[in-house]
């Protein structure tokens, strides 16, 4: 016990003397929480639209007004030929092109049917899909209006109609910040815990001080615990700063129990620190440790469900995410912070993360050799 106390004192001294670590602990939560949610706005609006009106009739004018009044579209081109409009698409100045054919109004009234031509820049699939369907909806509504106008006693009232009442739970205003901020909190804890612990033992190896520790009676688990505890405390500090920032800036207060949140983070930190230490025991230089950690971090974060839902992944990828501790943390953060889930709801995740912690730390202790 005494040995660990001395080790802890040494570690804390080293941490407080290293300005870059301190800067990272304070600055990273603030920067990430302030900038990322601002940038991560997935709402599709301001879609740039180019229109080619070959008809110049009352109807085509009305259609254009309806579209621009919808608020989703920004009219960036009013061209006379399709080729001109395509140039706007190539220069990324237009996302959608709507072509109204000649005699649109006349044919619609006479032939009961008329086509509109829509071209979508589909490089960004999601945006293309949404933009196209917005435009489709507007055209459909416009169509209904015209029909009502032309046939005043529309028969549509006599048909059976199912009214769909939808409500969005846990986030009624569909605020993107609610989705992204708990995820960023999870990433923060992971990055701080993972990088700091991965670099730590390796640094002692690189500058040679590990030899001095190896010749003392310090036990393996003493040494690992002495490395683990300071970073565990640091992780909790970062998490607290993050929670405060998300409360002050975004007004996000956890719905569920704060105790449960800290409890889960406590266990999770053990797991991710264990992972960092494990990498540390396998590497010889800080450069290697950084890069390897970075390699895994990138996979963990991309496949953790931060930006794209895990359910949308193919089966093999979903299977891979079962071995990704970050995905459990992101999941639990959202459940507890947004939905107010209780201990009973997150018990499976807690169990798995505890298992990660156990296995990774045991592996790190076994792999740390005092002899070369």
């Amino acid at each position, binding site marked *: 016990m005494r040995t660990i106390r001395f080790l802890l004192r040494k570690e804390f001294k080293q941490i407080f003397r290293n300005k870059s670590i301190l800067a990272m602990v304070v600055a990273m939560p603030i920067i990430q929480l302030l900038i990322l949610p601002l*940038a991560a706005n997935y709402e599709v609006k301001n879609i740039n639209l180019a229109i080619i009106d070959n008809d110049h009739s009352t109807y085509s004018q009305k259609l254009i007004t309806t579209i621009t009044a919808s608020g989703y579209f920004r009219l960036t081109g009013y061209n006379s030929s399709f080729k001109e409009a395509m140039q706007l698409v190539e220069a990324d100045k237009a996302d959608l092109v709507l072509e109204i054919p000649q005699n649109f109004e006349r044919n619609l009234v006479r032939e009961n049917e008329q086509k509109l031509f829509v071209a979508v820049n589909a490089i*960004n699939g*999601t945006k293309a899909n949404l933009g196209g369907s917005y435009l489709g909806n507007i055209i459909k509504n416009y169509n209904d209006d*015209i029909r009502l106008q032309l046939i005043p006693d529309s028969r549509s009232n006599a048909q059976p109609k199912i*009214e769909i009442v*939808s409500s969005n739970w846990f986030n009624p205003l569909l605020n993107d910040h609610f989705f992204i901020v708990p995820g960023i909190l999870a990433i923060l804890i992971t990055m701080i815990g993972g990088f700091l612990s991965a670099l730590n033992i390796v640094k002692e190896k690189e500058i040679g001080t590990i030899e001095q520790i190896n010749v003392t009676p310090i036990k393996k688990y003493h040494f690992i615990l002495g490395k683990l505890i300071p970073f565990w405390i640091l992780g909790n500090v970062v998490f607290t700063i993050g929670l405060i920032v998300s409360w002050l800036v975004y007004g996000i207060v956890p719905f569920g129990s704060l105790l449960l949140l800290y409890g889960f983070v406590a266990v999770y930190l053990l797991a991710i620190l264990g992972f960092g230490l494990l990498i540390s025991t396998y590497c010889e230089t800080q450069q290697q440790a950084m890069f390897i950690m970075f390699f895994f971090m*990138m996979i963990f974060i991309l496949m953790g469900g931060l930006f794209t839902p895990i359910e949308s992944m193919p089966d093999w990828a979903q299977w891979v995410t079962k071995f990704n501790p970050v995905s459990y943390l992101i999941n639990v953060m959202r459940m507890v912070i947004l939905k*107010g889930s209780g201990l009973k709801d997150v018990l499976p995740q807690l169990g798995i993360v505890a298992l990660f912690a156990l296995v990774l730390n045991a592996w790190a202790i076994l792999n740390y050799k005092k002899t070369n």
Partner: protein
Amino acid sequence: MKQLLVFIKKEFTHVLRDRKTLLILFGMPVIQVLIFGFALSNEVKRSEIMIVDQANDQASQAIISKIGASQYFKIEKLTNDSKQIEPAFKENKIKIAVIFPLNFNNHLLRENKAQVQVLADATDPNNATALINYVSAVITDYQSTLNKNAFAPYRIISETKMLYNPQLKGAPNFVPGVMALVLLLVCVMLTAVSIVREKETGTMEILLVSPMRPLLVILSKSTPYLIFSLVNVASILLLSTYVLNLPVKGSLLLLFAESTLFIITCLTLGIFISVKTSSQQVAMLISLMGMLLPTILFSGFMFPIENMPVPLQIISNIVPSKWYYIIVKAVMIKGLGFSAIWKETLILTSITIFLLLISLKNFKTRLA
């Protein structure tokens, strides 16, 4: 000249001997392309849905079987107790719930009007909106089978064509992004850290007192990374062509020329960071926070730039990867020529020259 070659050879050996760094160097591009290409998508499929059927009549069952047959949903539970919805949401068992009230069919047929309630888990707002849209589409579809006989006059049909990417895949959007990301990582982070490492371990002194001119030392340090990066560009393009079925539409030569320009920009950035810092940890931190984060944020392949607040949109203009991303998208996906991207190329070149001048000015031949 011979000296330079010897130094470059030393650097190559240096990098190639470190297997763990090689993993990052060549493994990362492959993994990134695979993850982005196959694992990440916003596509909705087999989302868990709970159905509370209090009506249990012809209409509700017809709709339920349509929902069950849809590729977007997997019926997690069919019940008549609406109290089960909330716990299921909290346990994360379902994403959406549909409630059919009592006498659904009766209302629909007698009064021509019936109500369905749809509840979605909006912790992920986009997903929730998409799911509600899909459920509504299924219900409207059923409704229109009821109205089959009615004739709709004055029909406007919109014929939609998806340009460049008819199947709406994610790949055309992210392959250029991954290229920018990988080149930046390899060039900035690896060069910065490897030069600073020589400072930290003290071998930089030895290099600086050698008969080589200091600038040539730096040049020889960055040459291997230029070559490795070009190898990475080639491997990403090969993967994209043969694994993701996304071939290069424009000129390959132009693409490689522009990539070389961007690599030089990144190398200059890496050198600049290494000139300014003295420890590996700090160099790493600056490359991560100052380079990687802005690239992910501002190149436009993960987050839409046009939705950002204006100050961030302005900042995005000084991020070199944004311009490279636009160039690659134009050449690779749209198949445009140099005339379409000369402006972006000019901007990228100016940023490079500017950075080069600054780092040369700050370069010191003495360490202390």
